[in-house]
C-alpha cells in the first residue's frame, strides 16, 4: 500500500499499457474460447480472437493478408492509438458472476454501446477526428454510433490515463439495441468469419437468448521492445456470453437434483459442435476454467470422501473424479501458482475435422456450491427523490468478503486505506450540483474532505457538453458501506431535442468504479502460456473495475402539439379582440337608439327580441304591438339568416379554392 502521495491513477477502463511483447513482424491471427461454469448454474463462454499487423512499413492500410482492411484504414485515417468499442446487452451480475477476475474487469461492459478512443493528433484536432470516427464506425457496424458525434454525448476524462491526456474521448449510448446486424460486421473482420473454427459455434439464437452478451473490439498499438516505437497494431475481438445450459438429464428428478450444477456440452449450449479450426489461425484452443472457489470446494469434497492422493495428478483423475466428468481428456492442465489456485484445462482443436468433431461436455455428479471472487466493494447506483423537478443520484458501495481478507492481509500496516476511483458522466439536462456531494460512511455522514482525496469536475454546459465528475476516494479498510449522494435538477429540453419516445425517460450512463490497488490477474507458469494471446491477456495486471447500473430519469415531457395549440388560441383571442374593436369603432349608437325608439318604445326591446328568437313565437301573446314587433323580428331574423348563409358560403368557397389550390 505504499502509494506515491499524488497518485494520478490510471482508471483502468483504458488498458493502455502498451504490450511490450516481441515486436510484430507479420500478420497473425489466433482464436481461443474460454468456458467457465458460474456459481448460479450458468456458464460463461468467452471467445477471444486476436489479429496483429505490423504498422511500420508503408503497406499498412493498403495491403493486407489477414488483418481486416477496413480496420487498418480506420487506424490510419483517424490516427488511432488505441480504441475500444463494445456492444452489450444485459448486465453483468457482479454479485453472482464475480467481479475480481480478468474477465469481469475487462469484458463486463455497460449495456448498449461504449466507445473510447485515443488519437495520435494535436489536441485541437481530437474532436474532429472523434466525430469522423463515430460516423465511420456506425457505418461499419450498422449501429447508431454516430449519435456520439454531438459534443453533448461524449467527454474527455482527465485522469483516465496520463499518457493520453487530452487525446482521449469517451462516450456511451446506453439505449442502443444490440443484435445480429452488429455481430455480422464484427465477424466479417475475422479471416474465417463464422465459416470455420471457433466462431462457427456462434449460433445467433443461442447468443441472443443469453442472459448477457457483450461483443468487443479492442485496438492497441504495441511497442517494439528495442526502440519503443510503434511496431504493430493488435486487434482483439472478444465475445462474452453468459448462458443457461439446458438441463440435459431427463427422467426422475432427485431431491438433490436441483443442487447439482446442470451438465452441459458445447452442442447443448450452442446447438453446434466445432468442426475443426480456422486454418489461418496460429493457435486455436479451447479452455475450461474452474475458478478458485470451485477448485477449493472440489478438493474439500475429494478429501472428505476418499483419501485424496495429492501425488496422483494424472490426466485420468483430472478428467474423471468424484464430482464431475469431462467428455474429452484435456491436452494440458494449467494450475495457478498461488495457494488457492484455479485450474485451466487446455484443449487444442488442431486435430479435429468434419468427421471427428469437438464437443466438450461436463457432467456434474455431486452438488457443489461455491461463490465467485468479488471486487473489494460492491457498487450500485440508484436515484432518490420524486417528481419532475429534482432528485439525487446515490452510489452505494458495500463491502464484500474480500475486503475482510484485505484487512487481514494488511493488518500489519498501521493505517490501511482502500482507494476507489469513481468516474461519473451525466448528460447536460441532468443539472448536477457538485457542491451537494455528501458521503455517508457506515451510515454516518462525514465531511467530504475526509475521504475525497481528489475531485475533478467539469460542469455540464447546456446543449454543449455533459458533466463529468472524477473522484479519487480513500476509505479505511474496515468500512462496511459508503454512500455518495449528489443532487440534481432536471432541465428542460427544446422541443426538437426530445427523442421519439420521450416518455420512456432518459438514461444516465453507467458510472465506472475502479480499484487501482487491486489487480485481477491469473498467475500461471510462464512457459505454459507463451503462445496464447488470451492467457497472456488474463495474466496482464489490470485494475479491478466495475460498472454501475444505467439510471433512467423521467423528465417532464411537453405536450408536443402545444406550440400549435398556443398559436391557435392566441390567434383566436387576437382575432376576437380585433373584430370587436372594429365593430365598436364603426358603431352608430345614436342611430341604433333612434331606430329602436321608432320600432319599439319599450326599453327592453332588444332583450325581448333575443328572447323571441329563443322561444320563437311563444311570447307573441304578451306583446302589445304585435304587427310591428313580429314584422321587425321576422325581418331581423330574415336579415340574419342570409348573412349566416353568406358566411357559410364564404367559408365553403374558401375551402373549395383551397382544395383546388392543393391539387
Amino acid at each position, binding site marked *: 500500500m505504499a502509494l506515491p502521495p499524488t497518485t494520478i491513477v490510471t482508471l483502468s477502463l483504458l488498458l493502455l499499457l502498451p504490450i511490450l511483447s516481441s515486436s510484430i513482424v507479420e500478420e497473425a491471427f489466433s482464436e481461443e474460447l474460454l468456458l467457465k461454469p458460474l456459481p448460479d448454474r450458468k456458464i460463461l463462454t468467452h471467445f477471444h480472437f486476436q489479429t496483429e499487423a505490423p504498422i511500420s512499413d508503408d*503497406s499498412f*492500410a*493498403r*495491403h*493486407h*493478408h*489477414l488483418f481486416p*482492411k*477496413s480496420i487498418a*484504414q*480506420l487506424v*490510419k*485515417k483517424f490516427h488511432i492509438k488505441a480504441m475500444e468499442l463494445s456492444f452489450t446487452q444485459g448486465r453483468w451480475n457482479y454479485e453472482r458472476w464475480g467481479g475480481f477476475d480478468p474477465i469481469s474487469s475487462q469484458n463486463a461492459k455497460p449495456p448498449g454501446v461504449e466507445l473510447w478512443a485515443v488519437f495520435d493528433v494535436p489536441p485541437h484536432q481530437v474532436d474532429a477526428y472523434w466525430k469522423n470516427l463515430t460516423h*465511420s464506425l456506425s457505418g*461499419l457496424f450498422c449501429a447508431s454510433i454516430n449519435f456520439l458525434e454531438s459534443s453533448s454525448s461524449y467527454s474527455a476524462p482527465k485522469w483516465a490515463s496520463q499518457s493520453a491526456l487530452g487525446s482521449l474521448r469517451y462516450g456511451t449510448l446506453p439505449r442502443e439495441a444490440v443484435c445480429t446486424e452488429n455481430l455480422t460486421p464484427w465477424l*466479417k473482420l475475422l*479471416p*474465417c*468469419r463464422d*465459416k*470455420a473454427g471457433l466462431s462457427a459455434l456462434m449460433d445467433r439464437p443461442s447468443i441472443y437468448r443469453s442472459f448477457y452478451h457483450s461483443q468487443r473490439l479492442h485496438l492497441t498499438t504495441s511497442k517494439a521492445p528495442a526502440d519503443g516505437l510503434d511496431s504493430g497494431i493488435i486487434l482483439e475481438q472478444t465475445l462474452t456470453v453468459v448462458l443457461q445450459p439446458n438441463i440435459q438429464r431427463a427422467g426422475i428428478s432427485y431431491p438433490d437434483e436441483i443442487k447439482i450444477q446442470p451438465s452441459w456440452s458445447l452442442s447443448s449450449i450452442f446447438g453446434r459442435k466445432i468442426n*475443426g479450426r480456422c*486454418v*489461418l489461425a496460429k493457435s486455436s484452443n479451447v479452455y475450461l476454467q474452474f475458478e478458485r472457489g470451485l477448485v477449493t470446494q472440489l478438493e474439500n469434497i475429494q478429501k472428505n470422501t476418499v483419501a485424496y492422493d495429492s501425488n496422483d495428478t494424472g490426466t485420468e483423475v483430472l478428467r474423471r473424479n468424484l464430482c464431475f466428468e469431462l467428455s474429452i481428456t484435456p491436452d494440458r492442465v494449467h494450475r495457478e501458482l498461488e495457494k488457492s489456485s484455479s485450474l485451466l484445462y487446455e484443449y487444442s482443436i*488442431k*486435430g479435429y475435422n468434419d468427421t471427428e468433431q469437438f464437443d466438450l461436455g461436463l457432467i456434474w455428479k455431486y452438488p457443489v456450491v461455491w461463490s465467485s471472487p468479488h471486487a473489494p466493494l460492491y457498487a450500485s447506483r440508484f436515484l432518490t427523490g420524486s417528481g419532475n423537478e429534482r432528485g439525487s443520484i446515490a452510489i452505494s458501495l458495500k463491502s464484500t468478503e474480500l475486503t475482510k481478507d484485505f484487512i487481514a492481509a494488511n493488518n500489519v500496516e498501521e493505517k490501511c486505506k482502500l482507494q476507489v476511483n469513481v468516474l461519473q458522466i451525466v448528460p447536460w439536462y441532468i443539472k448536477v450540483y457538485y457542491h451537494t456531494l455528501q458521503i455517508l460512511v457506515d451510515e454516518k455522514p462525514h465531511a467530504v474532505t475526509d475521504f475525497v482525496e481528489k475531485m475533478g469536475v467539469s460542469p455540464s454546459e447546456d446543449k454543449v457538453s455533459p458533466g463529468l465528475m472524477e473522484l479519487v476516494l480513500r476509505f479505511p479498510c474496515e468500512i462496511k458501506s459508503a454512500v455518495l449522494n449528489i443532487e440534481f435538477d432536471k432541465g428542460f429540453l427544446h422541443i426538437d431535442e426530445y427523442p421519439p419516445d420521450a416518455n420512456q425517460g432518459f438514461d444516465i450512463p453507467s458510472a465506472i468504479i475502479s480499484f487501482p490497488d487491486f489487480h485481477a490477474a491469473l498467475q500461471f507458469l510462464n512457459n505454459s502460456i507463451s503462445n496464447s494471446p488470451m492467457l497472456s491477456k488474463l495474466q496482464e495486471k489490470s485494475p479491478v473495475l466495475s460498472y454501475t447500473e444505467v439510471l433512467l430519469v423521467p423528465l417532464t415531457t411537453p405536450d408536443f402539439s402545444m406550440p*400549435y395549440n398556443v*398559436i*391557435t388560441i*392566441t*390567434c*383566436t383571442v*387576437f*382575432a*376576437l379582440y*380585433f*373584430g370587436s374593436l*372594429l*365593430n*365598436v*369603432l*364603426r*358603431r*352608430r*349608437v*345614436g*342611430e341604433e*337608439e*333612434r331606430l329602436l325608439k321608432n320600432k319599439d318604445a319599450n326599453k327592453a326591446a332588444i332583450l325581448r327580441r333575443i328572447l323571441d328568437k329563443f322561444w320563437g313565437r311563444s311570447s307573441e301573446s304578451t306583446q302589445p304591438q304585435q304587427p310591428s314587433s313580429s314584422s321587425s323580428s321576422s325581418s331581423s331574423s330574415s336579415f340574419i339568416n342570409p348573412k349566416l348563409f353568406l*358566411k357559410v358560403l*364564404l367559408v365553403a368557397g*374558401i375551402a373549395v379554392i383551397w382544395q383546388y389550390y392543393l391539387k
Partner: protein
Amino acid sequence: MAEISNSPPPEPKLTEQNSQTQITESFTSQFDSKTMRKTKPGVKRLIMTLTVVISFILGFPLLMKSIEIYRAPLPFDRIESFSSKIESSPLLFPCRFRAIFVGFNFRVSNNELEEVIRRKMIDLSPGDSRCGCDGDYSVSAVVDLEEVNAVEVGGKLRENNEEADELVKRLVNVYGEEKVYSVVVVNGEEEVKAVVGKYRHAWIVGKVSEEDAVFHVAEIFAKVFVNGRSEDGVIRNEFMPVGADGRIVLSFSLLNADPRDWIYDWDFSEIDETLLQPVIEALKPVADVTVESQVLYHTPKSSFSYWDDEHGSHIFSTQDLPFFVNSNEWHLDTSVAAGGRSKVLQLVVYIPSAKECPLQLELPNGEISKTNGFISPMWGGVVVWNPQSCIKDFESKGPVRHKISPQDLHKVFEVLMGQLRQLLGLKSDDIYVGESGTSILLGSERGFTEWELDALSRKHFCFNLLSCATTLGSLSRLVQSLPRMIIMDEIGKQVKFSLEAANSAQTNATIGIYDASAVSSRHSRSLAEDAFFHPSIMSISYYSFEHCFAIYSPFFLPVTMHILLAAVREWKRYKQENRKYLTWKAKAKTTP
C-alpha cells in the same frame, strides 16, 4: 368602450331636434325620414374601415417578407443555357495531324494532298460525333524530307518495332510540337507493314501506291487516333468509372475459395511498385488512382460449374457469369480510406477450391477463354487463377501455405490491366484491322499509350461536362419544384463555381489545352455533385405552405372576415345614405 357609448347620446337628440324644427318649419308634408335625409352622410367610419383594409393589404407583403425562407439565388437561366448548349453542340477539341511521306513522288501540291486526306477522314469519321476531335481536321502533309534516306529508314523501321518507335519519335520531333498526331509513310519494295506506336505517331513501310498510302494514313488518323479505336463516338452515361471527386480506388482482392484445401498469398507490394505505379502515373490526367489489396478466405463462387472431360477441367459458362460474384460471401467492402464519392473498382483474383479445380471459362463459341476472366462494367473484373496442380495434399494435416510465384502473378496482372483498360473503355487487342489493311498496335509498359490517353481524356472531359450539366439541371428542377425549400448560400456558390469551371474547361478545350480542361471539367463535375448532395438540402427540408397556412389561418381568417364585411357594409350604407340625401336635395330643389 364606455367612453364611446357614453359620449354620442347627446348628438342624436340634437339632430332629432334639428330635424324636428326643420320639419315643423317648412317640409312637414314632403319629408319622409325613411327615404330622405337632409345632411350629407358622414365618411368618418367609411374612411376608418377603408384605412384598416388598406393597411391590411399593405401589410400583407411585409408579412410574406417576414415569413420568407432563405433561398440563395441560383442562376437558373445560366444552368438552362449551359445544359442546352451541352446537349445541342458537341464538345470538340482541335486536333492536328501531320502526314510525312518519304520516297513518294506526288503529282499534286501539298495543299491538295492535305485536302484529300482531310476529306477521306471526314468520310471515315462516324457521322455526328458528340465528343472528340473537331470535325474540321487540320492536316498538314510533308513530302520527302531531304535529310531522310527512304531505303535506310525503311530498313530500320522494319527491324524492331520498339526501336523504330523511338526512331520515328525523333524523326517527328524535328517538327517541334509533340501534340500533333503523325504518320510517317516510307516507300519501299517489301510488303506493307503498318505500326501504331505508343506515342502519338504511326508508320507505314513498304510498297504502297500513292492513293493507298493516302487512304491508309487517313484511316489511321480517323479510326485510331481520333476515336481511340472505340466504335462509337457516343458517350454513354456509365462510360467512366471515375468517382465524382475524380478518384478511382483499385481494390485488389485475392479470394481463396476454401482455405482448407490450400492457401495462396501474394506479394502485392512488389506488384504495386513494379506494375501498378506506372499505370497510376499514366492515368494521372484522367483520374487520381489509389491502390489497396486484401486477401479473403472462405469465399466460394455462387454459380455452378461442371466437369468437362474434353478440356479436362471444370467449366463455367458465360451464362453463369451474373451469378459468379457471390455478394453474400465476398465481403469485398468499399474502402474506408477512399471516402467521399470516389469510385471503387474491384479487381478480384479467384482461386478455386480443390473440388472445382481447374476452373475454366467457356466462351459462347465453345472455346476456353484465354484470360479466364471477365469484367462487369462499373464494378470491376474477376480473374480465375488455377493453382499448378489441383491435387490436394491429403498427407499433411492442415493446408499448405503457398505464395503465387512472381511469373504467375505477372500474368494475372496483365489480364487485370487489360480488364482495367476495358473498364475505362479501351480495347485490349494488339491489332487493328481496317479497310485498308491491318495495323500493329504497340503496347506501352505503362499500360496506356499516349494517343489512348488523349482519347481517354477527351472522353473523360465530355463525360464530366455532360454529367455536370445533368446534375445541375436536376438540381435546378428540384429547387424550382420545391418553392419553399431552404437553399444555403454555399449551394449557390458551388453552382456558380461549377458553371465557371465548366466554362473554363470549354474554353481550354477549344484552345486545345488538354490537361487544364480535364482538371477544370473534373472540378465542375465534383462541384455540381457537391451542390446536389449538400447535406442542407436533405435536412429540415422545407417549410411547407400547408404549415404556414395552418399557423396563420386562426388569426387571419376571422380578422379578414370582419374587416371585409365591415368595409362592404360601410360602403353600402354610405351609398344608401347618400342616395337619401340626394333625393332630399332633389326634393328640396323642386319644392321651393
